[in-house]
């Protein structure tokens, strides 16, 4: 920090961070509090809302059967599509490459609530009922750009001569990719996959339109419970999501550059 930085800067930054983190801290505190009302600060410490969460059929289903499953499949598909796309974009020169890159990142530019509405109307036109698959397809659309971004960053930071050297030593292009490039891409690939999972796992805007009664994702479940004035089981479910996402972001920060992801 340069000399003469105003003394108020640090306290100001501290206050902004408090405001930024306050809702998460409060939710976590409520999930451990004994009161049925959303009470903060909590008057005691209990795990009863976590017990209630695991006893609730609808919460368990939406957490483990829907959100977790969709998140994992969406991350796997996004990683496949995105890695192939990023390699094609970075390692080849062709007409319209930049336009294609913009197109590939377009899902980040379209407001999610509008994409959700558009996909809903699209499925309605095709008379496809809402299911785990309709939601999954929507999630792959919004997850893949994150994989493309991180794998592109990984590829750009890598020396293409390594691959060329492998090929001049007799490896085919495919062998060079799988034996040299892919292992070097490991951390950017994993970061992309993790972010893809997080995006799917925490998405609400698409899920509001695309999840049906049999495929209610966890955020939608929380959303409707809030509207129906549920009990702190909502907070317990939220705390679990916060913990999972916090842990995953920590991993990304360790193995890759977090800033490139957002």
């Amino acid at each position, binding site marked *: *920090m*340069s000399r*003469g*930085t105003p003394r108020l*800067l640090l306290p100001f930054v501290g206050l*902004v*961070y408090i405001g*930024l983190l*306050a*809702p*998460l801290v*409060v939710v976590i505190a409520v999930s451990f509090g004994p009161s049925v009302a959303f009470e*903060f600060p909590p008057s005691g410490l209990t795990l009863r809302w976590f017990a209630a969460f695991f006893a609730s059929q609808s919460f368990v289903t939406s957490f483990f059967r829907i959100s977790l499953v969709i998140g994992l499949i969406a991350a796997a598909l996004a990683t496949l599509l995105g890695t192939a*796309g990023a390699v*094609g974009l970075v390692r*080849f*020169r*062709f007409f319209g490459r930049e336009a*294609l890159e913009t*197109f590939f990142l*377009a*899902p980040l*530019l*379209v*407001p999610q*609530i*509008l*994409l959700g*509405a*558009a996909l*809903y*109307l*699209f499925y*309605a036109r095709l008379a496809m009922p809402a299911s785990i698959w309709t939601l999954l*397809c929507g999630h792959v*659309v919004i997850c*893949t750009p994150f994989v*493309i971004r991180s794998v592109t960053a990984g590829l750009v930071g890598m020396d293409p*001569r390594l691959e*060329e050297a492998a090929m*001049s030593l007799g490896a085919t*292009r495919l062998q060079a990719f799988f034996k040299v490039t892919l292992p070097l891409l490991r951390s950017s690939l994993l970061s992309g996959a993790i972010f893809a999972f997080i995006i799917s796992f*925490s*998405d609400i*805007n698409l899920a*509001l*339109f695309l999840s049906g009664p049999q495929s209610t994702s966890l*955020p939608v479940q*929380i*959303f409707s419970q*809030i*509207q129906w004035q549920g009990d702190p089981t909502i*907070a317990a479910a939220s705390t679990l*999501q916060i913990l999972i*996402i916090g842990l995953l*972001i*920590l991993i990304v*920060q360790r193995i890759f550059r*977090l800033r490139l992801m*957002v």
Partner: protein
Amino acid sequence: MAIDPASAIKSVAPVEVSHRVRARPTWTLLTGPYALFLLVLLIVPFANVAVFSVHPYSPTHVALSGLTLDNYAKLFDLYYLRLFGRTARLGLITTVICVLLGYPLAYWLARARPRLQRLGLFLLIMPLMVSAVIRIFGWIVILGRKGLVNQALFALGLEPVKFLYTETAVVIGLVNILLPFMVLPLMAAIERIPPSLEEAARNLGANWLQMFRRTIMPLSLPGLISGCLLVFAESISAFVTPALIGNPRERMAGQQIYDMVLVSFNWPGASSLALTLVLLTLLLLFAALFATRRAGRLERGA
């Protein structure tokens, strides 16, 4: 003359030639699947929205055929003009507050020691990735009738204030969710400003505030512009925040679309509104992209 190993490898290996010959089929194979996927699940759905938007609407029939511009004409009704006005106003207020809170934070992050910067970035990005519903749920607890804020007011001997289901609550929620979108581009822009420039300004007698205004602000302008456009674009299509803690009688555009699609089944009306909003957002975001690209070029001295 120094020999560049890169050019040495390239001139010897026949790789270049062979991959140019095979280039076309390979890149289409690689980029094709996702391109196709986006075509079917992004382009076609919005084309479908465009088609819906020129269909006539009847409360009794779901999809009528026919061609009309009524759905766009309706967007000029007083009801919609007020909806747009309210949405834009809340978006602007949110953007201004994000600038005021985000600039100092971005400056601090950009100039922080690496270890502190890592922590700061984690604490900025982690809440961003948690579902918006959860963060808004937190605000319901904080701002509620017996919430943290009202407890504090009560302790001070003041009357409780109704925060929830007001525009104030919506702005608080939106600022909380969108602040990182302001801080990250600003921080990137400030990091590119050499600290020696700050020193120079200080040595020439500027106090910190003058230095910030005359050095940091003009040089980080592209970051500021792209941050503002991002925050504004995100806030005008907000749904979860106004739906959970806003006044139900004073809706924002995102809520209107949600209701028209899922509650009143006015798909043509929802489509014209959605298409207008998408085009507006894309316009704003391409402006942001242009601002940062141009800044990049300027930096390279072009």
